[in-house]
């Protein structure tokens, strides 16, 4: 895949239109890397002039902040801001709602002011600007339900954009009982992704998967690599992995467009 880095761009004296912040999951997690690649294919299809930081990218510090380590968060944030500002980055897009949230809401107070997009918002903008169309043949009629990531939904009130993209796929979307502002968390937020849950009678991702199963879906769509992991595990726990796929919206669009 041809993925230019900011350093390479700078060496050629070029400034890309947008920085794609890949994030830790998107860079290292085998499942999330597929989302990353799908999104890159979409960017390439729409001829978006983008670059990544590559080895200069580091943790946003979001997980540390939610865990209560404000020191580590601000160290990470200020280091990242130095790098981003050195490259004169103006616009950031990311597939991770947690990075999206912290860039959009928490970095400005520390001197990092950027126009920040979640990838669903960016794709939506590409469509509005007539740079991308979504083909509704490949996924036509498939039963799909959408799980709202907390840091996209409640945290930033982005509910409609992902749904508008899904509608373009030609699928048959059924909402879960708890959706949009009443959506149940997948269980990964607040740094839970990185620890065992506290003692209880059930795992949160299993409960959320049960919400999804009530809609009898073939596809559970989401817009967050961590939600993806949790829902995938939930589907496996329910032994439904043969019937149900958990997919990011970017992957679905790539599939719809034969990318």
């Amino acid at each position, binding site marked *: *895949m041809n993925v230019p*880095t900011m350093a390479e761009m700078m060496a050629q004296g070029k400034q890309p239109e947008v920085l794609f912040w*890949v994030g*830790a999951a998107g*860079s*290292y997690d085998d499942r999330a*890397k597929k989302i990353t*690649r799908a999104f*890159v294919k979409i960017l390439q299809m729409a001829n978006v002039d983008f670059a990544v*930081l*590559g*080895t200069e*990218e*580091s*943790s946003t510090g979001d*997980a*540390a*902040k*939610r*865990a*209560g*380590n*404000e*020191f*580590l968060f*601000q*160290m*990470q944030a200020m280091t990242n801001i130095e790098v981003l500002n050195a490259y004169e980055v103006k616009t950031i897009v990311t597939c991770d709602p947690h990075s999206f*949230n912290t860039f959009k*809401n*928490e970095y400005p*107070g520390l001197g990092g002011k950027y126009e920040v997009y979640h990838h669903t918002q960016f794709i939506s903008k590409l469509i509005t600007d007539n740079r991308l169309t979504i083909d509704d043949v490949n996924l036509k009629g498939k039963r799909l339900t959408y799980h709202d990531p*907390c*840091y996209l939904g*409640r*945290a*930033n*009130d982005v509910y409609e954009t992902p749904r508008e993209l899904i509608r373009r796929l030609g699928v048959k979307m059924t909402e879960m009982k708890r959706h949009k*502002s*009443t959506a*149940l*968390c997948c*269980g990964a*937020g*607040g*740094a*839970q992704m*990185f*620890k*065992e*849950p*506290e*003692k*209880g*009678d*059930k*795992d*949160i991702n299993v*409960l*959320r998967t049960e919400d999804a199963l009530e809609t009898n879906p073939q596809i559970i769509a989401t817009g967050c690599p961590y939600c993806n992991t949790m829902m995938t595990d939930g589907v496996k726990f329910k032994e439904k992995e043969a019937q149900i796929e958990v997919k990011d919206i970017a992957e679905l669009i790539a599939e719809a467009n034969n990318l």
Partner: protein
Amino acid sequence: MEKYLPNIFFALILIAGIGYFTMNVRKLIRNIKLGKDIDRNDRKPERFKNMAKIALGQYKMVRRPLSGILHIIVYVGFILINIELLEIVIDGLFGTHRVFQPVLGDAIYGFLIGNFEVLAALVLVAVIIFWLRRNVEKVKRFWNKEMTGWPKKDGNIILYFEMVLMSLFLIMNATDIHFQEAGVGNVISQFIAPWFDGYSAETIHAIEKTAWWLHIVGILIFLNYLYFSKHLHILLAFPNTYFANLNPKGQFTNLEAVTKEVKMMMDPDADPYAMPEEGAEDEVPEKFGASDVTDLNWVQLMNAYTCTECGRCTSSCPANLTGKELSPRAIMMKTRDRLEEVGKNIDANGGEFKDDGKQLLNDYISPEELWACTSCNACVQECPIGIDPLSIIMDMRRYLVMEESAAPQELNMMMTNIENNGAPWQYSQQDRLNWKDEN
């Protein structure tokens, strides 16, 4: 002189009732001010709009339609019927009887009282349904583990108060012979009046007087009950929605004290051996995060007093729904309990807090509760009056991590990885771009 005894007695109980309430309100304000300062005086138009929409307009109540609509009936009834209180107070002080009737004329007076009667009847019905939901249907959120003992009793006492007050209001009208004869505004009470048909005029009059007195005394007792009850929300919902957070819910505060230190650490020109500034060594270093109520800000403390323990937060909390210790409602209740304890300590020690060896953390809220939170904001979203339990959870996590290094082991590993290789997992930063050549 004897003729004025009722008037004097009325004035005295009115003064006592309002006086004791005022004293407790001052205590309440004092306790809230024990919290740290936070600026919530910006964006005033937005704040007024929030208050008008959420507190006055009950906008978020109807997210749950049944309890929402019933609540609006009680709320509207409560506010409007209290207009009648003005007449009751004037009548009580000056020995008049239905002083507004001749002033407003039968048509208007009848219209007002008629509406009050309808509302009173509706409130009575709504409150009975509330009682049934709590005690017979046993709606789950009223039966969580924190809803035993006083909180459970408190919920029912409030409902009994309202049932009794509304009944007294209707009985008072039903036994007012002149009022019934005039036939204006007795929309509901005309159906209650026949119950008293067998009694003599004196007895009916005595019942009317008794109902009248019990009604006003009941209202004064109820007013003074507020401070000790979850029912404080009828007053605090207004400032609480006005001063609520207006930023996106995902935006957590950046601790300023940390910013200063991090900037200093990252400044290449900073002299690590520099002497602290004159006088700086006397300053108590700021505590990071919160381990007790006085480390929280005053809005968080006001939140605690405002909480009416409806449990909408807890019933939507993913941790609570899956059997974890955490309940956002309990976080608010425990914060209020500890704050009350600190307030009483101050009262008992002549205005100074004397260390009691206790704090909010561990003595009230356990780390297990705090670590179960997914920061999903469902509790904040669901609260009908803008309470933010998540901010308290986060401030306490900050204390655990930054002051006590007491994060769960796996989180310590995650943070060590971020420090060492810029990712929560132990992967080399040099491998960040490997995905582009994989398939």
